[in-house]
């Protein structure tokens, strides 16, 4: 009985640990430039300002508004991921995993809020997922816009 309980606790902890590490490893992917900025500007997304205020000032934010901002950005970005410059019109494997990770972190934010521990950390994780999504969308849009054209070809076609 004790052994089974121990295995249950350890295995559950390991499951969440591996899930978190896998998602963090995916989020560490380096893009050749910051594609997310143009997507943020075009769609008036709010996560960069939210992250900046948390990182630089540690400013306390209104919780219901914060949830709303994150949720709206998430919905906009997942829609773009599926529909903007995506020939297959479906999510890739890592996108599905990160969507799940975002939902889990969103739930964990509510729990952390109740317990008043590590709220900032959860928000930063959520914004890093959103930034990854924005980077992916930006990269796709950039690829479609320029195709195989070189800079000179593009300018000649203008």
């Amino acid at each position, binding site marked *: *009985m004790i052994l*089974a*309980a121990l*295995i*249950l606790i350890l*295995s*559950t902890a*390991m*499951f969440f*640990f*591996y*899930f978190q*590490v*896998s998602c963090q*490893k*995916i989020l560490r*992917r380096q893009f050749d430039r910051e594609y997310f900025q143009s997507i943020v500007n075009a769609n008036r997304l709010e996560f960069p300002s939210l992250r900046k205020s948390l990182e630089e000032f540690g400013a306390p934010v209104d919780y219901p508004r914060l949830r709303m901002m994150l949720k709206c950005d998430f919905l906009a970005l997942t829609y773009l991921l599926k529909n903007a410059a995506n020939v297959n019109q479906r999510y*890739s*494997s*890592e996108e*599905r*995993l990160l969507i799940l990770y975002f939902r889990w972190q969103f739930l964990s934010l509510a729990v952390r809020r109740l317990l008043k521990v590590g709220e900032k950390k959860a928000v930063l994780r959520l914004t890093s997922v959103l930034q990854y999504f924005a980077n992916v969308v930006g990269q796709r849009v950039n690829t479609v816009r320029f195709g195989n054209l070189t800079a000179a070809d593009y300018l000649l076609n203008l």
Partner: protein
Amino acid sequence: MDSGIVSYGFQYGAYLIQVGLIILVARSSHRNRLVGVLLYLSCLLATGLGRTYALRMYGLASRQYSYVYWTTDFLLVISAFLLVCLFFRRACLQQEKMWRFVRLLLTFICVLVVSISGLLFSHHYGNLLAGFIVEFSQNLYFTCLVLNTLLYLLLQQIDSVDDQLGLLVCGVGIQFAGPAATFALVHLTANEGFAQSLNSLVNRFCTLGMILVWAYAIVHVKEKATQVTRRQIPVLAEVAAHLNIQV
């Protein structure tokens, strides 16, 4: 939503991605490095299809289905152990001394699990399926989870640059940890219906999770591995310049 429908959705989704991944790995130029992945995915797919076929043909309560189920479970757990061994080999590729030690350790663990299972089986002598195979599978399964965690720690310790291996190990962790937790829950709740259905759902969910992580690792992270090998060229050029040799 009915948990049965979700469970089947996970199962068939996983089959499709497994087939895609097997084809991708088999056709890839890196297949020698991914032989363990290929082996495990093939076993997983064969197991799933074999069990589905046996279930449709003979029914859940039949003896034939029971034979198929436990035989495939045995094969699956053996392939899982082989997979972890192959990952250890890949992690210790540059460190022969460490590999010699790890090889000994893995052999010792395998013999230990067989012995303990045999000892426990001797108390239920006469029923091979419900005795030895069940005991052996459960023991080896949890051992694989512990070994996988040791491998993860080893990769951190040696500062491995093999990002693909890191992700593959994380995928295996998801695959082993979820079912291990639900098996323990089933044991604790004395085979309650809820725990059984949760077990089936978590098994499929974790398999799908592992396959998604592996798909990302195989499709996207191999480029980085190529970049690592490419970086050796300037080093060679630098050495040649130092020795005044034209490369």
